[in-house]
């Protein structure tokens, strides 16, 4: 669990990552702040194009430049500002102290090398072991991520494995150098539910045994609820709500978070009609003035269309970026009344 007193592992301050394209400047990440403490899981949730993946690529130093560029802000990892490091210094951190797993394991694995070659490559580079020792270590890693018959699997190629097994291999590779932070970008989105359950359980178990922190990026509120300690909700390049997971689900304060939760069907709450968020996410080339959610927000009025709200403390440890979050309470009550009547 997060320990508020302990030293922050990651401290992202006012991060801005822009892409300079022919059509204009895409402000993919536009002033994002969050921190990750040792041993905790920070969930980052949002829909496509909200900038959740670009924040993680910025931490890894993997934003392609050009067209991308970190134009402002700091990414402090154990006190060091990663945005100021050289490529060579970054290489020492990447894979060693911060690892990443992606959505589609097949595109992240090299199809012409065996599983063993690929895991041991990382071990040889970062730990300086011999090939033979590294292979032995790879077998150990495969055992830890629950791959049956690791001695055989190590000589197989990625196409011989199922999707769930490939994601396990990716996790084994990511953990082979004992990272302090694991960034998981939609790690279970391409997997079936029963396999997703296996992978989430594995990740939770490994987090505890390795004592590492996880940054879990996903669009799935169910996955967020399952694994996160704290959650940042992103919309149009900004964090709009930031708090611990129980508070977020019990008392969402931003109309977007609330809208997202209402728009998914729930197993224990049958409604006749889902409450969809109207409209679509605005194009990053053409964001509206004021609050970026104003085109879809049921509460938007006056100020919302002219001034952009700051991320403010709505309660102890509960930050929200909205002018009218207090007025959401009334709307929640009405909504609950309608639900009761429907039943």
């Amino acid at each position, binding site marked *: 669990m997060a320990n508020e007193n302990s030293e922050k592992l990651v401290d992202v301050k006012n991060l801005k990552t822009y892409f300079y394209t022919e059509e204009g400047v895409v402000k993919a990440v536009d002033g994002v702040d969050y921190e990750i403490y040792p041993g905790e899981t920070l969930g980052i949730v949002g*829909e*496509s194009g909200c900038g959740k993946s670009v924040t993680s690529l910025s931490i890894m130093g993997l934003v392609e430049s050009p067209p991308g560029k970190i134009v402002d802000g700091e990414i402090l990892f154990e006190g060091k500002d990663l945005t100021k490091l050289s490529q060579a210094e970054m290489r020492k951190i990447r894979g060693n102290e911060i690892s990443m797993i992606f959505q589609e394991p097949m595109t992240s694995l090299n199809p012409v090398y065996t599983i063993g070659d690929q895991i041991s490559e990382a071990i040889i580079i970062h730990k300086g072991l011999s090939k033979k020792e590294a292979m032995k270590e790879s077998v150990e890693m495969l055992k830890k991520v629950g791959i*049956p018959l690791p001695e055989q699997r190590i000589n197989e190629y990625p196409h011989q494995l*199922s999707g*769930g*097994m490939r994601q396990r291999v990716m996790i084994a590779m990511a953990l082979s150098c004992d990272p302090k932070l694991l960034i998981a970008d939609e790690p279970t989105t391409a997997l*079936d*539910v*029963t*396999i*997703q*359950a*296996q992978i*989430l*359980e594995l990740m939770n178990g490994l987090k505890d045994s390795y004592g590492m922190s996880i940054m879990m990026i996903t*669009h*799935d*509120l*169910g*996955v*967020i*609820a*399952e694994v*996160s300690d704290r959650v940042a909700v992103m919309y149009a390049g900004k964090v709009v709500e930031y708090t611990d*997971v*129980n508070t977020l*689900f*019990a008392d969402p304060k931003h109309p977007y978070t609330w*809208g*997202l*939760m*209402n*728009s*998914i*069907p*729930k*197993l*224990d709450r*049958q*409604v006749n*009609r*889902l*409450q*969809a*968020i*109207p409209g*679509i*996410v605005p194009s990053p080339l053409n964001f509206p003035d004021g609050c970026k959610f104003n085109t*879809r927000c049921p509460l938007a009025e006056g100020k919302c269309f002219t001034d952009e709200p700051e991320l403010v403390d709505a309660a102890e440890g509960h930050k929200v970026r909205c002018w009218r979050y207090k007025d959401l309470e009334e709307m929640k009550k009405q909504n609950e009344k309608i639900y009761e009547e429907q039943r």
Partner: protein
Amino acid sequence: MAEKLLEVNNLKKYFPVKAGIFKKTVAHVKAVDDVSFFVNEGETLGLVGESGCGKSTTGRTILRLLEATAGEVIFEGKDVLALDKEDLRNIRRDMQIIFQDPYASLNPRMTVADIVGEPIDIHNLAKNKKERNEKVKDILERVGLGSEYMRRYPHEFSGGQRQRIGVARALAVDPKLIIADEPVSALDVSIQAQVINLLQDLQKEFGLTYLFIAHDLSVVKHISDRIAVMYLGKIVEMADKGDLFNEPMHPYTQSLLSAIPEADPTKKKDRIILEGDVPSPVDPPSGCRFHPRCPKAFDKCSVEEPVFKNYGDNHFAACHLLEE
């Protein structure tokens, strides 16, 4: 009692696996292997299962987008699989499909008016161009797209809007049955709800019957009246959605339901985590196909295939444990 609009009996679809220079058939992928179910008029039957279980193949075989290996598909008393080309074209007016990927299923070189109007032309449903365009306009408005979009091309639309175009095209011929093959899984969460609401509104308005194919159990529960669960080419359980969720009979359904991550962090679920992966449909396990992963399997399961039986209230399941 509602009338059965669609009845599928012992449907099989095997794909040959060919090898060698003479392309000899060496094995078969049994994608759909002896599947039977029915859909009542005006209801929504949800067909769920994990990837590779044969749910999409079932949908396509019903429409004869794929030719079945064996079985019957009875639609309004006629066996669709036995129809000749002419009759098949006529019956397709009444059975339409909506695909998963709104990016891949619309022709990028056609305007929206032509995409939606094409089925009207094929079935000669409009006397002249003017009437056809009136129809297209009308349908587009029904699915929440204004007539100003008629001359635009698919790339100018967002994912949710494209799926609306796909729905409009299916509706253009005034069908009775719509097979929706993962219609919302490629869409963002907030847009999913918009499309689901649209499908439900249209069902009410036009009295449509849906076969709703999806892997997302919460979505299927929301939209369906009854649900059939598939595993490796077979239906293992079928029941009213309330019965299925409250009293799942088959161990696979039980573990599938327990695996759904719920958007409620206070809930700690008793997960039944299945071991291993879904086996290959080329060489499915003997007996019950679920037995290698089943936490409750016993001797009989690997030898004898369980029968798909009605255990009361139209709650069907295929499992040896239930017969004890």
